[in-house]
C-alpha cells in the first residue's frame, strides 16, 4: 500500500477497541430504530402465521415471491466473507487485513437472514421439526432427500457452522486482548471463557494460523456448493422457462460475489464514517476492492450475456416469450432496465476512474447501486418465470407483494444491520492481530528515486526448498 501509516501496537489497540470500550452517540438511536424495524417485521411474521399465507401476495401460479428472491439475495451477500477472507488469505493479498472480520461477520448474519426467509415462506415453520424428529413413519412424511429443499438447509446450515467457526478462530487473539483489558469482573469472565485460554504462545499462534488456513481451504467448497445448490432449486426444473439453464450455478455464484464484495465495500465506507477507521481503511483499500469488483462485475455480465444468448438460441417460443416479459413488458421491463443500469452500466465505467475508486463516497453509493440491481436480478429471475401465462395456467399476472411481505423483507435488512452493530459493540470489527501482523511485515524498498511498498514473504524462503531438493 502506498499510503501507509505505521502505527504502534498500543495505538492499534486503542483505535480498534474504541468501538467496544466506549459507546458512540449515534449507537443507541441506531440500534433502537433497527430493533423497532426488526420487531415490526417479526410482528408481521406472527400475523402471517396466525392468518395464514393468504395475507401475502402469493397465489397461483406465483407461489415463490419476494421471500425467495430475498433468500437468494442474502445467500449472495453471505459469499462476501469467504471471498474476501478465505480467498484473499490463501492468495496472501495484503490489503485484505483490515476488512476480513467485517466481511466474515456479515457472512454469518446474512446467512441467518437468508435461512429465516424460507422458514417464513413455508407458512408453518414449526413443521421443520418433523425433519429432525419425524413423528409418524407410516404416513411417509419424511423429508424427501431427493428434493432441493433438503439440499438447501443442509448446505446453508453447513456454511453457517463453518463460517461461524471461521469467525471464532480468527477472533481468538482479539478476544484475549479484550479479556486482558476488561475491567468488570463479569465481562472479563465472559471474554476469558470465549478466549479459550489464548495467551499468545508460539504454539498457540501456530495453531491459530494453521486453523485459519485450513478452515479457509475447507470452507471454499462449502462456499461454492451453497449457491450452486440454491441455483439448482431453479435450474433442475424443466417446467419453468428461463430457469432450466446449466450456467445457473456459476452465474449465481459470480452474482453473489458481485453483490457480496459490493456489500463489503459499503461496510468499509460505513466503518470509516461511523468508527473513524480512516487510518486503517485507506483509499488504497477502496482502490483494491474496486479493481476486484471490475473483474467480478465484468465476469458476471459475461455470464448474464451467455444466459440470455442461450435462452434465445433455443428458438423455443415459450423461452422467447419469457424474455420479452422480463425485459419489455410492464412492470418487469422498467425493473429490468434499473437492474442492468444499477448493477453494471453505472458502477463499472465509474470504477475505471482512479478518483472514483479512491473515493469513500463514490464507492459507497456505487456499491449501494450494485446491491439494488442485484436484488432486482433475483426478483426478475423468480417472479416472471412463474407468472408467465402458459397453456395450463388459468390465473396469471396476479402477484403483488403485500405489506406483510414487504415488512418481513425489510426486517431482514434491519436484522443484518442490527447484528453488525451489536457485534461491533462486543467484539472488534477490524482484526487487531491481523493489522498488527501487517504492520510488522511491512517494509519499503527504494527503487531509484521511488519508494515502493514491500512485505515480508509469508512461508519459508525460496532457498529452503532448494536445499531440500
Amino acid at each position, binding site marked *: 500500500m*502506498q499510503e*501507509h*501509516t*505505521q*502505527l*504502534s501496537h498500543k*495505538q492499534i489497540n486503542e483505535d480498534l477497541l474504541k468501538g467496544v470500550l466506549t459507546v458512540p452517540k449515534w449507537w443507541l438511536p441506531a440500534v433502537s430504530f433497527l430493533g423497532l424495524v426488526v420487531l415490526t417485521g417479526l410482528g408481521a411474521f406472527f400475523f402471517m402465521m396466525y392468518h395464514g399465507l393468504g395475507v401475502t401476495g402469493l397465489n397461483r401460479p406465483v407461489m415463490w415471491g419476494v421471500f425467495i428472491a430475498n433468500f437468494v439475495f442474502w445467500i449472495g451477500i453471505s459469499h462476501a466473507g469467504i471471498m474476501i477472507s478465505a480467498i484473499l488469505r490463501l492468495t496472501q493479498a*495484503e490489503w485484505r487485513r483490515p476488512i476480513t472480520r467485517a466481511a466474515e461477520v456479515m457472512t454469518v448474519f446474512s446467512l441467518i437472514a437468508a435461512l429465516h426467509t424460507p422458514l417464513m415462506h413455508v407458512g408453518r415453520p414449526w413443521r421443520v421439526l418433523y425433519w429432525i424428529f419425524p413423528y409418524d413413519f407410516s404416513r411417509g412424511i419424511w423429508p424427501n432427500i431427493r428434493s432441493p429443499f433438503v439440499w438447501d438447509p443442509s448446505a446453508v446450515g453447513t456454511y453457517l457452522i463453518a463460517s461461524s467457526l471461521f469467525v471464532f478462530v480468527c477472533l481468538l487473539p482479539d478476544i484475549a486482548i479484550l479479556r486482558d483489558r476488561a475491567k468488570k469482573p463479569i465481562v472479563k469472565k465472559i471474554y476469558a471463557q470465549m478466549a479459550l485460554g489464548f495467551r499468545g504462545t508460539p504454539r498457540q499462534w501456530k495453531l491459530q494460523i494453521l486453523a485459519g488456513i485450513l478452515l479457509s481451504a475447507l470452507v471454499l*467448497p462449502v462456499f*461454492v456448493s451453497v449457491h*450452486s445448490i440454491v441455483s*439448482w432449486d431453479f*435450474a*433442475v*426444473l*424443466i417446467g419453468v422457462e428461463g430457469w*432450466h*439453464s*446449466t*450456467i*445457473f*450455478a*456459476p452465474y449465481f455464484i459470480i452474482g453473489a460475489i458481485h453483490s457480496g464484495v459490493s456489500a463489503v465495500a459499503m461496510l468499509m465506507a460505513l466503518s470509516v464514517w461511523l468508527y473513524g477507521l480512516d*487510518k486503517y481503511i485507506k483509499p488504497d483499500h477502496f482502490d483494491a476492492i474496486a479493481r476486484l469488483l471490475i473483474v467480478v462485475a465484468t465476469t458476471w455480465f*459475461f*455470464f448474464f450475456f*451467455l*444466459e440470455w*444468448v*442461450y*435462452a*434465445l*438460441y*433455443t*428458438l*423455443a417460443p415459450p423461452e*422467447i416469450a419469457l424474455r420479452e416479459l422480463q425485459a419489455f413488458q410492464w412492470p418487469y421491463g422498467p425493473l429490468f432496465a434499473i437492474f442492468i443500469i444499477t448493477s453494471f452500466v453505472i458502477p463499472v465505467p465509474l470504477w475505471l476512474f482512479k478518483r472514483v475508486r479512491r473515493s469513500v463516497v463514490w464507492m459507497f453509493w456505487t456499491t449501494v447501486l450494485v446491491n439494488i440491481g442485484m436484488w432486482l436480478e433475483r426478483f426478475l429471475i423468480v417472479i416472471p418465470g412463474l407468472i408467465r401465462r402458459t397453456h395450463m395456467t388459468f390465473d396469471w399476472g396476479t402477484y403483488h407483494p403485500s405489506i406483510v411481505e414487504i415488512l418481513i423483507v425489510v426486517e431482514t435488512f434491519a436484522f443484518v444491520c442490527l447484528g453488525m452493530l451489536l457485534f461491533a459493540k462486543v467484539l472488534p470489527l477490524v482484526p487487531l492481530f491481523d493489522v498488527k501482523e501487517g504492520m510488522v511485515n*511491512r*517494509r*519499503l*524498498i*527504494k*527503487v*531509484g528515486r*521511488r*519508494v*515502493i*511498498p*514491500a*512485505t*515480508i*514473504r509469508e512461508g519459508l*524462503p*525460496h532457498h529452503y*526448498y*532448494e536445499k531440500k*531438493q
Partner: protein
Amino acid sequence: MVNDPGDRVLEPYVETDNSVETRKAVSDGLLGIHNITSNRFWQFAALFGIMFIFGIVGFVWKLSSGFDDKSTWGYYVAVFAFLMTTSSAAPMVAIAPRIANSHWRRPISRAAEIWTLAGCLNLILYIPLIWLLPSLENGRRSLWFYGQQEGVPAYSPHIWATLAIVGLVLLGLSLLWLSTLPDFAVLRDQGEGWKKKWGGKLALGWRGTSAQWNWQHHRMGVVGAFYFMMLVFVHFFISVEFLMVHVPGWIDSLYPITHAHNALQAGVATVMLTMFFLRQFGGYKDYIGLDQFWGLGKLLLALSLLWFWFWFSSFNVFWYGGKPSEQAVLELFVKGPYLYLFITIFILVFILPWFTMIWNPVRRSVWGPAILATSVLIGTLLDRIRLYVASWDVAGRSMAKELEMKMQDVPTKIQTPGYEDIFIMVGFIAGSILIFMLATRLIPAVNLWEQKEMLLYKAEIQFHRTKVTVMGKPR
C-alpha cells in the same frame, strides 16, 4: 503514531563487484544458456520435424478425401481444438500473474508467451474447417437474436469465427513481440551473428528510456487484457460453431465457459511441462525454481477443482431435469459408447490432480507437477476427442436441422481414426513443439528483463533469529 517508517525503508539495490545476483550476472547467465545449442536439441528438433512432415502428409491426404462426410472430420477438429486449448491458452499463465504483480511468474512468462507462435499452425488447421461449418441457410441455429435472423448473412458464423481466431493469433504475436523488445535490444548489443542482426531489427530502436519502459508496461497490460478477452470469445465461438451447433438438443449455456476453463487448465499444464523440460534439460535450473512449480501447482489444483464443478453443474441440470433430448445428449457424451473414455478423462483431469496436488510436498517438487501436467494434457486431448468426434459423428448423420436429438439417434460405437487422422494428430502436436523449440533459438526462453527487474524488488533481511525475503509490489 509512528509516521516515520524509519528503519523499515530498505536501501535501494546497489550492484557491487561482490554481489552474487547482479544484473550483469543475470544477463550473462541467461544469454550464455541461450547461446548454447546442444546436439541433443537438434536431434529432438529433427525428430519433431519428421513427425511434422507426416502431419503435413496427413493434412493433404485429409483434404483430398473431401468435405462431404462430416463424421470423418471429428479427429481433425479435435486436434485443432486441442492446440487451441493448449498453446493458445498458455500465454494466460504469463498475463494473469503479471497483472496481479506476482513475482513467481517472472521465469515463466516468456516460455508461456512463446507458445503463441504455435497459433500459426492453428490457422493452417482452421482453413479447411471454414468449408465444414454449416451456414445459416441450412436452417442451423444462429447466435443472432431471433428477431433479426432474416437479415443476417448466411456465412456470418464463418466471418465471426475467422475474425476471432485470426485476432487471437495476432494479439498473441503482438504480446510476444512487446514482451521481448528489451531482450531483443540485449541481443542487438551483446549477441553475435544472425541473432545480433535479427535482434537489432526486432528491437526497433529500444534504448530502455523511462518513456519506453512506461509504454512497455502499459502496452503489455492492455494487450494482455485484450488477449484474455479474445481467448474467452474464441472459445465461445469454437464451442458453439464446432460443437454445439452439430448436436441437436445440446443447449448448454455453461459450455463456452467450460471450454475456456479447459483451455486455462491445459495452458497451465503446458507451461508446467515446458518449465520442467527447460529446467531439467535446458540448463535453466538456477532460474526456474521450486517456487514456479509451487505457484503453477496451486493454479492447476484450483483449475482441476473448477473442472469438476463446471462439469457437474452441466451434468446435474441435464441429468436431474430428465428432459428426453438432454438425456440423449448425456448418452452421446457420457453414458453411451464414450463412457470408458469419459471415466479415463475424469481420472486424468480431475481425480489425479486433486488427490496429489492437494499435498504441499507434491506441489513443491519438480517431478510431481510435471507428471500431473502430463496427465492433464493427455486427459484434455482425450476429452477433445470424446467431444468433437462424438458431435461430428452426429453431424455426419444430417440432423443439424432438428432441434432435439432422440435416444435412437445416438451412435452405438466410437468412430475410429484413420491413418491420416493419426498423422495429423501426431504431426501437428509435434509441429507445435518444433516451433517452440526453434523460437527459443532467437528468443531467450527465460525473460532477461523481468529477471533483472526482480533484483530491484527483492531483499533479504534479518528478522529476529531468521532471514526472510522481502518483496516489493509496485502499483
